[in-house]
């Protein structure tokens, strides 16, 4: 489950970025800091996460750094304890 989700997230990032290759993107690449994902794409990313997890994301209760890397996204929205 975990690997499938991570690879779906990576595929999305690679596709939306258009420049970074699948090999260049690691699970701990700081995708926001390095502008692999731009601030304008965050909303789209949230919608994709919602589709993947089959449940809405509560934007009001987002913690800082929730989108900072594939690992962070996984921890915030997909790990068992994630709300």
């Amino acid at each position, binding site marked *: 489950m975990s690997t499938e989700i991570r690879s779906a997230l990576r595929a999305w990032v690679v596709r939306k970025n258009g420049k970074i290759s699948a090999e260049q993107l690691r699970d701990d690449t700081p995708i926001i800091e390095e502008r692999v994902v731009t*601030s*304008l794409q965050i909303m789209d990313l*949230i*919608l994709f996460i*919602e589709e993947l997890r089959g449940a809405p994301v*509560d*934007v009001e209760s987002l913690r800082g750094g929730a989108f900072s890397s594939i690992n962070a996204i996984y921890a915030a929205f997909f790990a068992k304890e994630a709300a």
Partner: protein
Amino acid sequence: MTMRPFQKTVDRLCEISRRGYTNPYEAIEWPESLPPDGLCTSPELISIYGTPTYDALTTEQRAKLSFFEAINFYSLNIAGEKPLVEGLASRLHKKRFESYSPYLHHFLDEENKHMIYFGTFCTKYAGRIYPDKKVPLGRREYAEGEEDFLFFAKVMVFEELVDVFNQRMAKDDRLIPVARHINFLHHQDETRHLVFGRQMVHDLFREYAPKWSPEALASVRETIAGYFSATWREYHNPQIYRDTGLSNAYAIYEEGFDHEASRARRRDVSSSCVKLLMNLEVLLEEPVV
């Protein structure tokens, strides 16, 4: 300064607002339920109109979709009006805006009423308002006047875009009466907000932009251009398709967003506002929408 003639306009706007003062609880007749085959959104303004997915829908599905499109459109109006009301309230009686305060009261009052119209429709007929997915971004310190300018410029972009929808749907006799009426009432108030907004954006830009560093000015331009994209992102929403009962909501959303028909619609709806901002030199090039 340029304030004198604007003051006259503002006084006139106040007068019209007072004359047309409405009780939001009596302004609209809410039917107990909506006809299942009635349209709530003009087909041409539906986010996936023109795509193969839309073409394949049955008449019933199209009616259902047009209802959830309205829920999304009304919800994004509320999402824009909440910070608008906050920003107007925080500018009441501030020195720079003191002489406009009587109008700011009307503006506030009218936006509050809009949220009542939109919110009543959504909660009464869909049982919910779609949540706002915009994430607030951290940012650097503002240059002098930049925060005020960005506030009014975003308000203007938002109101100009929404008003194109309102105008078209207020006139569309294919829609059920309550949906037409909401669009009509909103458009009526917006005509005044737009007069105010355009002048405000003009004045603030002329006053402050010359004082900004090239970096600050570039960042302002980037923010405004980005605001167009963000607003259009909200208009395309997988939740609409999910609630309509379609599977692969996210794929439909992507197809809809990237489709040439959608791009053309976004450019068409944005064009008058883009023209205004380019004439003012707030924007130097067309934003990607």
